[in-house]
């Protein structure tokens, strides 16, 4: 079963951290990702540019609107995401709770609905 983990935090909090604190957090995250990759849990790990870089697209009756910024103003913002394999929700929660960023913000765990998909890129890790 696949789960999408959204890493949410207040960007302001990250901005107020020193560079060495930030680097330490990142390094800790990548080390944990490495471990998850080896255990066959991790499929995708991607950090996102801050919310100022977001663009929102809507299409209504053939009219396309492109606007700057995120689709909604929220206290915390999605700063990155992880696609993981887990046996069940409990295991997904366990995996989520060990990400260093959950000490600062939150991790939203969303079960993925499985449609047919092209390519092998999203197939579960070969080294499971």
């Amino acid at each position, binding site marked *: 079963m696949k789960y999408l983990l959204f890493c949410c935090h207040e960007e302001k909090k990250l901005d107020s951290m020193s560079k060495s604190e930030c680097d330490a957090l990142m390094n800790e995250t990548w080390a944990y990702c490495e471990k998850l990759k080896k255990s066959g849990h991790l499929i995708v790990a991607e950090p996102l*540019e801050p919310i*100022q*870089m977001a*663009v929102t697209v809507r299409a209504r009756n053939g009219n*396309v*609107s*492109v*606007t*700057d*910024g995120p689709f909604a103003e929220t206290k915390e913002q999605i700063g990155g995401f992880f696609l993981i394999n887990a046996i069940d929700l409990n295991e997904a929660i366990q995996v989520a709770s060990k990400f260093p960023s959950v000490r600062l913000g939150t991790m939203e765990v969303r079960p993925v609905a499985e449609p047919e998909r092209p390519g092998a890129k999203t197939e579960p890790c070969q080294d499971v």
Partner: protein
Amino acid sequence: MSERPTKPVREVVEEVYRTESRRVLATLIRLLGDFDAAEEALHEAFAVAVEQWTRDGIPANPRAWLVSTGRFKAIDRMRRRSRFDASLAELATQMESSIDDAQENTDESIDDDRLRLIFTCCHPALSSEAQVAMTLREVCGLTTEEIARSFLSSPPTIAQRIVRAKAKIRKARIPYEVPSETALPDRLDAVLRVIYLVFNEGYSASSGESLTRHDLSAEAIRLGRLLLELLPDAEAMGLLALMLLHDSRRAARISGTGELFLLEDQDRSLWNRDQIAEGGKLVEQAFASRQVGSYTIQAAISGVHSQATHPTETDWVQIVSLYDLLMQASPSPIVELNRAVAVAMRDGPLAGLNLIDSVLRRGELSNYHLAHAARADFCRRLGQTAEAEAAYERALGLTQQKPERRFLEQRLAGLQDHS
């Protein structure tokens, strides 16, 4: 080599800076792929020009000279920095190997660069404020301080807006391109909106003591001309016409003491005939293209007013029919309000009052001071003094602009004198 050998080189460089620096910048951004690197390169190129042109004379094609000098300077700087960052070395080599292409910078490709710059600055992924700041700084060459002064903002606020916009262009990878044919109409709308926003900020400042800031309007008209030159589009024509026709009344619109004169009270001999003639011609051309959009129709309406030497000679029948057209092209409560005023002039205040009341009943304009000001005027003309008084009070409560407030207060006082 110089055409004017008597002029000191420094003056020539300054003149070239005024006429060419935006073109050179637009091309450098394409060649270097980065706004900040291009700006740095531009300034270095001009610094070298002062030295080298004094020594060797002014080159035959200063623009091409500046582009290639700026580019070499940028590559040089990258090489120096590559001692600390290996990835830059590769980039520098890449840029150098494509240097021959740079020699093929024809006038046409430079025009394309200017269009690229305009479309990038007005990209919908940037906020409207950022679009305006970027356009004024990068396309028009205004300084951060000048932009801040024009928008009654602080230089750090504007500077931060520009830094963020550039970061977004870089990180979200907003392309330095003229949009594809399918995306062009929407993207051109965004550019026209930015230009009109700049014009309006200059023409009817949204706050503050002075009602107009001429520099911004002049800048917007310059931008409108540039866009039309680069991209002959009917709505770009319409927008330029609209700005010229509005601007033609500048001298008559404000009294020496800063009071606002309505169209009907203006001294029409003060109107700028050259601007009216040019605007009128552009409207005709735009209508002839058969792709009539809202800027063109608004310009046509303004043009009808310009033709009347006295308010009583205004062709209200034609104006109402143009508003009908505008309601089809871009319906909005504001257009409806303006149409109501025109109908009142054609058919009398009662007809106008009925139309305005139906707009106000929908609640869309209930916080718009001009809707209440227009309603007040209709009531006044119908002799409904109490209603008029209430509407003027309401309008006063909704605007902060000092000259507009003074105007409304005078009308209110006049009402009370008569009653």
